[in-house]
């Protein structure tokens, strides 16, 4: 337990910094950028449940992300309460995730990726074409942000704190999930599905559960996206969005909690802040991805932590652990 003390301290410092961010970032623009990083990070964390822990690469998650936003937008625009909209959004998205899972879990690996991609494209097509419901490419304007417990979330700092609260909840439940029995089972089905079956695990159902959990956090992120932008249109469901979220997860480091957060931060900062200074920011983003993957094939966070460990060799137990893990993964058939 002693070994965890420094990381606990670091976590506290980070949380404190995040909590006080609106105080030292005077400009609301930057507070808004921070809010965006947080809800994209929630999306990436949700996707990571599948990609990282369950080993199932989805290229259709934008459909779930958009499904959530659309459902809330449609319910609230039709006169429903915000709470109803939010509950419906999450229920609808988790239900859609269940349908996706039933279809996509027919396969793993590239097959899974392709099915999710195709399903995502279908949802995108529906969002585009079913204009009576979605208002087509003109999108839906979402007039007001919700007021949970009467708190007005119109201002940038207020919204930031709301997102931060959800974000911290997501991170904590994710941390708990990773250490939980179900989390262990999910990782087991990623590494040794056959063995897990022989041990009495229902591999399909474990993966299904992972898909639903992933869908849940994607739904939450989609809601926050809607509340933030107060607008939703079919572009949100496009393949581009799925790919972006996947890039966040992979570049940051799959099957870690910090990785998707770091990945989200990189992508959002590139798109919003850096694009104001560098005209060819798309190319820079591409180059960053290529560099990360060339020098740290398992992503930024694992890469950096390995770098840090190699600089402080006294924490040997971890290094040997790494070596052991490497040996083990090579031993796998």
């Amino acid at each position, binding site marked *: 337990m002693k070994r965890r003390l420094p990381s606990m301290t670091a976590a506290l410092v980070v949380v404190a910094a995040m909590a006080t961010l609106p105080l030292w970032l005077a400009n609301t623009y930057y507070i808004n950028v921070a809010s965006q990083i947080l809800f994209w990070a929630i999306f990436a964390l949700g996707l990571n449940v599948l990609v990282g822990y369950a080993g199932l690469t989805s290229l259709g998650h934008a459909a779930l992300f958009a499904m959530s936003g659309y459902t809330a937008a449609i319910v609230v625009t039709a006169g429903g309460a915000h709470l109803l909209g939010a509950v419906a959004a999450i229920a609808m998205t988790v239900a859609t995730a269940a349908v996706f899972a039933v279809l996509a879990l027919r396969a793993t690996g590239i097959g899974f990726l392709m099915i999710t991609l195709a399903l995502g494209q279908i949802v995108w097509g529906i969002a585009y074409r079913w204009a009576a419901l979605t208002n087509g490419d003109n999108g839906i304007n979402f007039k007001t942000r919700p007021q949970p417990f009467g708190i007005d979330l119109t201002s940038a700092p207020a919204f930031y704190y709301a997102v931060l609260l959800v974000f911290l909840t997501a991170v904590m439940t994710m941390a708990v999930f990773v250490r939980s029995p179900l989390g262990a089972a999910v990782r087991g089905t990623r590494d040794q599905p056959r063995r897990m079956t022989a041990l009495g695990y229902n591999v399909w159902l474990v993966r299904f559960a992972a898909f639903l959990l992933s869908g849940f956090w994607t739904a939450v992120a989609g809601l926050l996206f809607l509340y933030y932008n107060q607008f939703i249109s079919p572009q949100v469901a496009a393949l581009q969005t799925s790919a972006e979220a996947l890039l966040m997860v992979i570049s940051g480091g799959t099957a870690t909690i910090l990785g998707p957060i770091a990945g989200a931060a990189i992508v959002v900062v590139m798109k919003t802040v850096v694009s104001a200074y560098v005209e060819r920011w798309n190319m820079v983003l591409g180059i960053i991805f290529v560099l990360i*993957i060339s020098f740290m094939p398992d992503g930024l966070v694992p890469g950096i932590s390995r770098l840090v460990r190699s600089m402080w060799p006294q924490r040997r137990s971890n290094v040997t652990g790494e070596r052991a893990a490497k040996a083990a993964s090579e031993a796998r058939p």
Partner: protein
Amino acid sequence: MNLWLVLAINSVTLGGLLFLLSAGFSLIFGLMRIPNLMHGSFFMLGAYMGSAFLKQGLGFWPAALASAIGMAVLGGLVERLLLRRLAGQELAQVLLTLGMSFIIADACLMIWTGDPIQPATPPDLRGAVTTAGLVFPIYRIAIVGVAVAMAVALWLLIDRTRIGAMIRAGVDDAPIARVVGIKVSQLFTLVFCLGAALAAFAGVVGSPYLSIYPGLDAEMLPLALIVVILGGAGSLLGALLGSFIIGFLYNFGQALFPDLAYVILFVPMVLVLVLRPQGLFGRAAL
């Protein structure tokens, strides 16, 4: 104009183009198991390079060949310098190829601006076939010829040559191929170059009727994916049949079910994947 006849002929011609597009993707995916998400970028960049060669006064086919060779070199570099280090790491390959596609797209925008380019049809193939009130451009029919010729050439390469035998062995079982002394590493580079060259060639051949514009890459990539999924990875025959099936699905689907225009290709794709994950003609499971 007989609608159904036009649709039928056009299905075949679109199928021809799709085969040129997806043959390389299928080879790379079948042999190397690399989901090459920059295949659309190869197509687009190839088309742009071809248009540049045309502007320099090169003939159409020499330009297509030059573009293919240029892309083979570029593809080889990417494989040797970047992809090589990520063998077997599927997610890393996804990230790398997507990252490269960002770079290529932005580079094309920088070099060729955003203005659409539509190269002229090769002079010998201009004009149209006119029979029984039916008008159909000669060039599109020629594309089918090119596709079939390419299919035969690839088939000969894979079925009749030593390299082809190695590729087949590699597709079936890479470790065994290595054991029997095939230099899988060089083979991979070769196949990647070939796949990239095919994509570029397809880009040039397609450009007179698709035209070239930013975003072409993202339009073409899903088509290549669908063809390969439908046909089964690594199977040339599968890619060929898959291309023609998609050609027909696309043409008749758009005409018969306009309300389903957006999903006309993806619904069959889901169905095939769910019912037969290895593709219609593929052997190995994905």
